[in-house]
């Protein structure tokens, strides 16, 4: 799976301060370390950038391109900042993100045409986040058609099903998995991506990684093309590069509803097993799901 490193994001205090003070070094280090960790894209999340949108994104894109050669995913809800950043990207960039909401269709999607870039299109529309797989499909089909008509080619579209936290709704995770499975049939040729860490939002901090990892393995099996991830989760990177085959096999067994002999599992394997059961909706989530 293609990994997009999420660690340069405005919610982080260090990033926010460095960005506000135009201190390039900490941000460049963050980009270089993510590249070394092995991700394939670098996400630059500057939030809504209400003050100086053009100057902020331009400065950041230039600063990051000085130190890494990876393609950039520009992450802002502000079309002015987005446009300024796209104009400077050396490699074909990724707009993160557009959606089926009217405002986004009118202001974000045309930028993908203008700069011949890739674009994340989420299933969000003016009615909100669709409630199940079928409603997601309906929403994305409309937006893809709109994007195609603008001149955006299908292979440049990265569909985002929108992943909700496990503590908010386990059923919704199953709908996302189902949607990812049906995507090649309903929209042949589109790519896909997802904000992976959202699944563990609200979960105990020290347990977020295992939720993210299991979610990634399951979504990869379902056919997801890429994910926006915590670059510094080494186990996640390892799982993605095919190490720990026994863990992947175990998670897939849970996915397929096969019987697993828990008594022969190691402690680590047991944690993956329990987490996979929670993600697949077989066990009701609680913040102490590993302790039963």
């Amino acid at each position: 799976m293609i990994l997009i490193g999420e660690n340069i994001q405005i919610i982080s205090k260090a990033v926010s301060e460095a960005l506000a003070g135009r201190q390039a070094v900490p941000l460049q280090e963050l980009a270089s370390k993510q590249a070394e960790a092995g991700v394939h894209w670098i996400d630059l999340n500057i939030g809504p950038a209400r003050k100086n949108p053009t100057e902020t994104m331009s400065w950041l894109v230039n600063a990051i391109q000085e130190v890494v050669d990876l393609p950039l995913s520009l992450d802002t809800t502000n079309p002015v900042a987005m446009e300024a950043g796209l104009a400077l990207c050396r490699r074909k960039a990724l707009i993160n993100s557009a959606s089926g909401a009217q405002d986004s269709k009118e202001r974000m999607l045309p930028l993908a045409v203008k700069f011949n870039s890739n674009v994340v299109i989420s299933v969000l529309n003016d009615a909100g986040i669709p409630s199940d797989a079928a409603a997601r499909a309906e929403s994305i089909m409309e937006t893809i058609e709109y994007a195609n008509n603008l001149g955006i080619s299908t292979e440049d579209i990265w569909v985002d099903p929108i992943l909700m936290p496990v503590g908010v709704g386990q059923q919704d995770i199953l709908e996302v998995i189902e949607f990812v499975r049906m995507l090649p049939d309903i929209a042949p040729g589109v790519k896909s991506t997802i904000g992976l860490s959202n699944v563990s939002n609200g979960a105990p901090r020290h347990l977020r990684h295992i939720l993210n990892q299991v979610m990634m393995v399951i979504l990869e099996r379902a056919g997801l093309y890429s994910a926006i991830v915590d670059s510094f989760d080494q186990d996640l990177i390892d799982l993605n590069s095919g190490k720990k085959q026994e863990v992947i096999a175990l998670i897939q067994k849970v996915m397929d509803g096969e019987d697993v002999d828990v008594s022969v599992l190691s402690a680590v394997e047991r944690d993956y097993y329990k987490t996979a059961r929670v993600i697949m909706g077989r066990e009701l989530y609680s913040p102490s799901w590993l302790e039963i």
Partner: protein
Amino acid sequence: MGKFLEKYPGEIKELRLGTEGKQAVLGGQNTLPFHFFEGRPGKLKLALEVTDSEPSDWTPALQEFYADVKSSPVEWARKCVDVFGAEMIFLSLNSMEKDLPAAEIAAGVKRVAEAVRVPLAVFGLGEKEKDAAVLPVVASVCSGMNLLLGPVLKDNCQEIAAAALEHGHAVIAQIPMDINLAKDLNIRLGKFFPLDRVVIDPLTCAVGYGLEYAFSTMERIRLSAVVHDDKTLQSPLIARVGKEAWKTKEAVQDAGKGVLWETATAFTLLLAGADIVTLRHPESLQRVRALVH
């Protein structure tokens, strides 16, 4: 006929409260609320609420109604059982707000427990430090009386539940209207406390004030326990209705409406899966009982 009926894998264990001669049982169902045709229904308890010092924050109509007994928790509790037919007394320790010595509060609880022939639930303020200081003393002074003590929160479950265990009481585990947190607290408790001695309080709202959230939480907890056999949620549920119903604007303005509000809220939550409902007005209790039977 039998082939059309569901058999569920999970069940709520019976919970016995009170001592020899005045024991009562609740829970014990292996089916959904009021599915008498399908399995063994649960044993419900309609409780009346009593406060251990004068209920100065209760609406004036209720204070007037209990004017003859409200200054004596023992007399009040007796009247609720003997005259009004309460199946359980829910004693709110509002004296904790005045920071009375814990031993004094506990002695008052013991007098009430000895005075009535129904089981007693004893409820603190829901403040983690104060409850952790007082409820263990209540547990100890009332040792062996098999009370239902609460609320036990995530942050004070060690102190309170350990004392309850040592002195033979059951506990009320309270969480803010969230099935995942209900499960979490029961997992924590289950490490040292028997889960068949836990009652879950997922918090309650009155009709028109968010009842649907309370309903949905209770319903999902009960479905997980009975239909999906989630062993961590197979506890009876308590709905503390009186407090919520009698603070609504309707109840404050008009005691008649208050009774209707309390009755409608309580009955709705019994449908969602509540095993204990706590009420403040005996007329509500009569009405709920008439609906249930």
